[in-house]
């Protein structure tokens, strides 16, 4: 094995690590984005439910 082969091996390993880390980061970010959108939707739904539960015209007591 020549020195050149070692260098290319290191570069390849480094690239692989970068690709894997990037893939994991992208996956985590994607999951977090979906989580954020889901959370925001939940918050919106919570406000909507609270609004419909509470905002009602005054009713006449029989």
């Amino acid at each position, binding site marked *: 094995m020549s020195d050149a082969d070692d260098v290319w091996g290191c570069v390849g390993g480094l690239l692989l690590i970068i690709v894997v880390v990037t893939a994991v980061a992208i996956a985590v970010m994607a999951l977090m984005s979906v989580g954020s959108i889901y959370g925001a939707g939940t*918050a919106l739904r919570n406000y909507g439910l609270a609004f419909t539960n509470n905002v009602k015209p005054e009713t006449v007591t029989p």
Partner: protein
Amino acid sequence: MSTATPEPAIKSYFFGKGYADLRSTIVESWQRNLASAQSEFTQAGTLWPGDYPAKGLAILRATAGTSVVLFGTAVFLLFSVVHVAVLLSFFLLIYLGFTLVYLSERGYLAIKQFFTVCPACHSKRPLPDYFCPKCGAVHRRLIPSSYGILHRTCQCGQKLPSTFFLKRGELPSKCPDCNEMLEAGHTEARKAFLPVFGGPSVGKSAFLFSAARQIVEDEAPKLGLQPSFLEARTESDYQRICQQLSQGRTPDKTLATLPRAFNLKLQKAGQSPRVLYLYDPAGEAFNETEGMILHRYQEYLSGLVFLIDPFTIPEVRAEYSDRLPAVENALSPSKLPVEDALSRILISLEENFGLVRGEQLKVPLAVVLNKVDAFDLEQRIGEPAVQARVKSSPTPLDPEKARNQLLREQLIRWDLGGLVQQIETRFSRIRYFTCSSLGHMPDASGRAFEARGVLEPVMWILSAADSAFAAARPRKAA
């Protein structure tokens, strides 16, 4: 416009419940957000120890939990601002709406001179208390307000008009002070207030009912006015006393020192109704100044009729001393000196009703000498004497002026110069009249009483108060 005490009605959503709802919505949305976030974090905690997909889901859940808190805050802030803006917009619109309607109504009622006067306790108010026709709840301020611009909803669900323009006056109403039931005419009519003052037995009741009768039967049709009675009780009193007069019987003595107003409604087609408030206090009310304090109509007089029994005056009694004993019972002279009766009215006005001592009253005063049918008084101070004075005058003389001169001079000759001076000092508009509120002396014949000269003083005061009563009126002989 705003109501100090709660009314038995449903307040506009934008004046009360809207803000409570906003608060409840924020509280509940936060509770829901916290519960959602807690649920997400719990699930994240459960998933995290698992394999990679589970860890991925844990990350998703944890992010969702955080997002619920962060976005929840943003959402509640944004929506609360929108919610408050909507509430305030409607609040302002409604406030503006009812303020405009309220001011329009107040202006209209002021121009029309409509206000509420209770015929029983004589309190004067802008409006009466109205009853809900369904449940009887009392609405003390049924006006355009935060309970509704044009209508309000009673707590029972009944819709009530809250303005004059929507026939609020058709609702049953009562006096806020004494709870006496009132008619629409006690509020929604232009009014004239006319008490007949004088000591006991000067003939106030006969004067008042005879004048009312002549207005109903004669004067109102001439003026194009349709007479009617506001209350059944007034009509029955009127019918009863008219019947007594027709049968030659004197009206029953007034017992109530605080009189109930005799209301007469007069309406011309296409015009606002007029309601007369005629007061006949028992003469005993003038025996003590304290007795006058409850006569609150003195606050808003249109004029006064001051009725004088000539046979109260010592000089008149002396002049007719030879014939008087024979008819003393029929004449029934008043016992209260004329000066005392007038002084008590003035003292009452000064002590209780804001008349400044020495100040002149602006309302017209009709000084009316009653019982001129007795002996030769008609010839001496009645219309024949007035006509004679007009004819004998070297310069053209108005009969009204001639009558004023004649009666004023006669009162001075009867040693009532002090009274004349007091009248002229305290009243700016004075006229002297004579009348016979019965037409002839009471006897056992049953001959009907037919009053003379009672209408003129009343119409003089009414026409000064309201142009609807003004008309050229030739003076009839009293």
